[in-house]
């Protein structure tokens, strides 16, 4: 157990140093939601979105989940590159805890997402977003759980496939419908009945709704609790699967 913590720290340190060495990557990773914020956000300012709060309190939570979705699902890409260079095998021959090889990466991914989310929030504040600090902190908790879940699945997939050509299409074909169906840009309350029903099958929708409630200070309602429960359940499932794949020697 003590080895697991130290090893996770060592592995996390390695990847955090790599991320800091390529800081420009942090900005590029957050570019897409930033573009939506700047060029799409102002269009919604005077539109009735049917939800609580103003348009920024509706859009920014969606963009935060979008950022989380894109950056975390592609996390496995870095593992594929490391596999190609033999780095993964080299580490697997050392006594390092197998689980730490996964957890250390996830620590970096969650911290990286927080840094990018902060950047997006600061830009949104400039555009007129107002949200309670407690709500933002709760939202970060949900986003962190979701990021850990998605990155974990992404690494598990990367461990099992051998080339980016097998990896990228799977991720891309999941990301786009997931974005549209979770009401990231516009809330699903605007959707016709059938589309609303379909979107209820996409777990990210509940996280988006939860984060929106957190941003408007509605902590006691059902959506926030449901969003938190869904994020936690996803994280538990994904970590279980990731652990299994990383523990198995033959991956």
């Amino acid at each position, binding site marked *: 157990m003590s080895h697991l913590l130290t*090893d996770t720290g060592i592995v996390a340190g*390695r990847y955090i140093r790599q991320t800091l060495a390529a800081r420009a990557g942090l900005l590029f990773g957050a570019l897409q939601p930033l573009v939506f914020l700047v060029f799409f956000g102002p269009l919604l300012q005077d539109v009735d979105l049917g939800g609580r709060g103003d348009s920024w309190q509706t859009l920014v939570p969606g963009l935060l989940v979008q950022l989380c979705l894109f950056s975390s699902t592609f996390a496995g890409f870095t593992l594929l590159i490391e596999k190609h260079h033999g*780095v993964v095998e*080299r*580490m697997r021959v050392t*006594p*390092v805890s197998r689980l730490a090889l996964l957890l250390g990466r996830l620590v970096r991914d969650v911290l990286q997402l927080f840094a990018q989310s902060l950047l997006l929030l600061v830009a949104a504040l400039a555009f007129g977003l107002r949200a309670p600090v407690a709500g933002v902190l709760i939202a970060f908790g949900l986003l962190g759980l979701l990021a850990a879940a998605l990155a974990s699945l992404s690494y598990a997939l990367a461990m099992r496939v051998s080339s980016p050509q097998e990896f990228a299409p799977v991720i891309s074909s999941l990301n786009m419908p997931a974005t549209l169906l979770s009401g990231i840009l516009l809330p699903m309350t605007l959707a016709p009945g059938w589309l609303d029903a379909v979107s209820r099958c996409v777990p990210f929708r509940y996280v988006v709704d939860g984060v929106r409630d957190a941003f408007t200070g509605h902590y006691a309602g059902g959506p926030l609790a449901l969003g938190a429960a869904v994020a936690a359940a996803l994280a538990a499932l994904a970590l279980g699967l990731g652990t299994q794949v990383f523990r198995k*020697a033959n991956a």
Partner: protein
Amino acid sequence: MPAAIHTAGLTRTFRTKNGTVEAVRGIDLTVPQGEIIGFLGPNGAGKTTTLRMLTTLLTPTAGKVTVAGRDLITDPGGVRERIGYVAQSGGTDPAVSVREELTTQGRLYRLGKTEAARRTEELAGELDLTGLLDRPCGALSGGQRRRLDIAMALTHAPGLLFLDEPTTGLDPASRAGLWQLVRRLREKHGTTVFLTTHYLDEADALADRLVIVDGGRIVAQGTSAELKQLHGGSPDATLQDTFIALTGRRAGRETENAPVAV
């Protein structure tokens, strides 16, 4: 003194779309401590699968295996603490500095921070990498990178070192340097070295004993002279003749001739 490697009935089968493939079919092998052993065979003979099992990367389907005094199946962690492994492709990230890789490796072998930094300097000195410590691994030449790979594998001063085709793609001078390094390791530290190679001259010059595998089984083992006498027809036979007599194929890639090194 217990053997560095002991296997009995080491087997690995893979399940594929077209049924099961027996990559390794019952290898019985004993490697005494301090020996340099050359593991040879044509492509697809089961060399890599065997090596991956012995280094804990692949679980055997069957067999009893002890590596560096530890049971491979029940105590893979114990094996990992006692072996070093240099993969054919190496194992460093081209974007990361040599110092970062060596120090992280030390930490993964559970050295403290200061101890890992000290060991990095020490290994760099021993393997002639001192001037390169702050360069990215990707900026190193083939020979330098191979020395780095070996330095990484020697971090915890293991008694048993696995080298998978260590000189493939190296120029003659780097090859000669690597041979000297392997000999020096054995002389100074009594390190057991298990190496696979495509180059028969390398096996001939470096290994105390050769093990030739084909079709997932050991087809012959002994010193180079013994194998030439027994299977090549005469003590003057070349190792290539012996290899062909045993496996029906030439060693190495058809057109490739190993550069000469001393």
